[in-house]
């Protein structure tokens, strides 16, 4: 037995981990060419991608025309981006009167500054900036965009359009649906039967109806139900419909997060004497929302893209305004450029949201689940 026992007198010192960075060649060898079969597959796939992508790149970039102002400048075989640059103003502002477009620019600039301020963690006064973004900014933006006050020329919402309208709808939809979704999710988990019933009915109704139906109802049906002298703005009706529709989705995403938080968290809050709203706001929601950031941003992205559905009720968002340009007699036959550009614009915004959400997830990942 004795020869089986052993003991250590000197401890092994910690050594550095072997170098795992191997550069481009190392990566290629490890991932694409680690064996004959994989090498063949890699070559075939890369060849196929090149074969697919080359004509696309040729059309969009190498053979394309970028400079000029009229159709006569479209001389190459590829895309003619002159179509976009010639119509750029209307793509951004829609039918907004030219003399008043500086007002839209101010709103764009304010929005960019606010979003950047709230998104960059280093900047101070987050609470006040956030409060202004939620309370002050909508009022200022409304006054600037619609006019009618302080001697500003009134611009009816039917003149709004293009990127500006898309951003208005998306922003209102996002900013409105998140808090409403939180309340609905909390309501659905409430022990109070009335609150619970209202939340369940609201969520199931709005989630069960196609968005197109919601928009049609908002624009066509609603005026039939309300008394004739009450005039609701068509855009406002669409905004409310979009907000309600997406808040139902948001509620279910957030409810998923709420359910993932253990009962112990709530009990610890109770034992410390915290009330319901304190427990919810300080303990439960911060954890639950963090867990479902991917789901929330997924919903935001879907919302952003689905703003283009408002074209069926006669609002000219980014996509609709580009489509309208296709029927311009001077610019017939440039629909591919139009759609590719619209796709690119939507993609840029959605991709930015996606990247930001991933950054936030990494940043908030300071604590580990206990």
């Amino acid at each position, binding site marked *: 037995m004795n020869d089986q026992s052993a003991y250590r007198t000197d401890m092994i010192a910690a050594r550095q981990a072997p170098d795992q960075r191997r550069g481009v060649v190392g990566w290629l060898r490890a991932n694409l060419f680690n064996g004959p079969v994989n090498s063949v597959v890699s070559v075939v796939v890369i060849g196929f991608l090149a074969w697919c992508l080359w004509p696309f790149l040729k059309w969009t970039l190498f053979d394309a025309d970028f400079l000029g102002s009229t159709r006569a400048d479209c001389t190459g075989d590829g895309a003619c981006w002159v179509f976009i640059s010639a119509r750029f103003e209307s793509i951004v502002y829609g039918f907004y009167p030219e003399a008043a477009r500086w007002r839209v620019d101010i709103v764009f600039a304010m929005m960019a500054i606010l979003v950047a301020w709230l998104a960059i963690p280093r900047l101070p006064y987050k609470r006040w900036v956030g409060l202004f973004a939620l309370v002050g900014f909508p009022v200022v933006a409304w006054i600037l965009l619609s006019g009618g006050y302080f001697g500003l020329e009134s611009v009816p919402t039917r003149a709004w359009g293009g990127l500006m309208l898309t951003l208005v709808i998306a922003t209102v939809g996002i900013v409105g649906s998140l808090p409403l979704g939180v309340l609905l999710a909390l309501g659905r988990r409430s022990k109070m039967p009335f609150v619970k019933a209202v939340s369940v009915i609201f969520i199931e109704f709005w989630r069960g109806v196609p968005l197109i139906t919601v928009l049609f109802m908002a624009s066509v049906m609603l005026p039939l139900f309300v008394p004739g002298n009450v005039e609701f703005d068509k855009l406002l009706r669409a905004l409310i419909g979009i907000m309600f529709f997406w808040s139902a989705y948001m509620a279910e995403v957030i409810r998923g997060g709420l359910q993932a938080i*253990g009962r*112990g*968290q709530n*009990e*610890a809050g*109770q*034992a*410390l*004497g*915290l*009330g319901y709203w*304190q427990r919810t706001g*300080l*303990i439960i929601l*911060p*954890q639950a929302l*963090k867990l479902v950031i991917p789901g929330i941003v997924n919903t935001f992205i879907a919302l952003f893209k689905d703003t283009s559905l408002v074209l069926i009720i006669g609002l000219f968002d980014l996509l609709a305004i580009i489509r309208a340009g296709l029927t311009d007699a001077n610019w017939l036959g440039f629909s591919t450029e139009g759609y590719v550009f619209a796709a690119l614009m939507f993609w840029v915004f959605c991709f930015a949201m996606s990247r930001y959400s991933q950054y936030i997830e990494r940043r*908030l990942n*300071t*604590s*580990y*689940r*206990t």
Partner: protein
Amino acid sequence: MNEATASDTRTGDDAKPMIEIEQLNKWYGDFHVLRDIDLTVAKGERIVICGPSGSGKSTLIRCMNHLEAHQQGAITVNGIEMTRDIKRIEQIRRNVGMVFQHFNLFPHLTVLENCCLSQIWVQKKPRAEAEKTAFEYLERVQIADQARKYPGQLSGGQQQRVAIARALCMRPEVMLFDEPTSALDPEMIKEVLDVMIELAQEGMTMLCVTHEMGFAKTVADRVIFMDQGQIIEQAPPAEFFNNPRSDRTKLFLSQILGH
């Protein structure tokens, strides 16, 4: 019955019992978990509650700060009778600290923030004062050097000590411990028990559900044995361990001390 006014939360002089439970009954659906519980805890008394799993001991102490609602009987804590009124429940909870088996620290907050949260929001203290109190108690559980870390970065024993500090920050009159060492690795049990022993020696009123019989022998004034939702036997530790009267107690003791 003691009728305490809402403003006067700390009426308990030494003569009055800290916790008084009369004819407490509770059911989960049809299952009768607590049966005719009578229990009086004096100020400064240290009580250990033990019993087989499912005997209702956790449920009993969870009734004392209304984490569980009871259906019959009366609970009076520090002169305030427990009703369904949430204001009164929260008033009782401010005087009752609780430590859980699974710590239940808030993982999104640092250790310091965990200790300050209820001071700031319930006691409405300024942050600086709350942090001062927090450090005072973190110091006492010897974990002040970890104050800026998140709970997930600490060991189980450290987390449980933070949980004790968090409860103490509210300066409670009573501390409830619900199996505080059951989720810990063996080498960490001692550090938590040491903190609890120190607390007991300072005169804190304590009710502790635990299987740590060494702890019971060291600090308890009274050991309560529960089975099937009833209090079977209660006695000072010397008598309880050396001379148990009921057969159930004897069986239980032989099972947990037998190995």
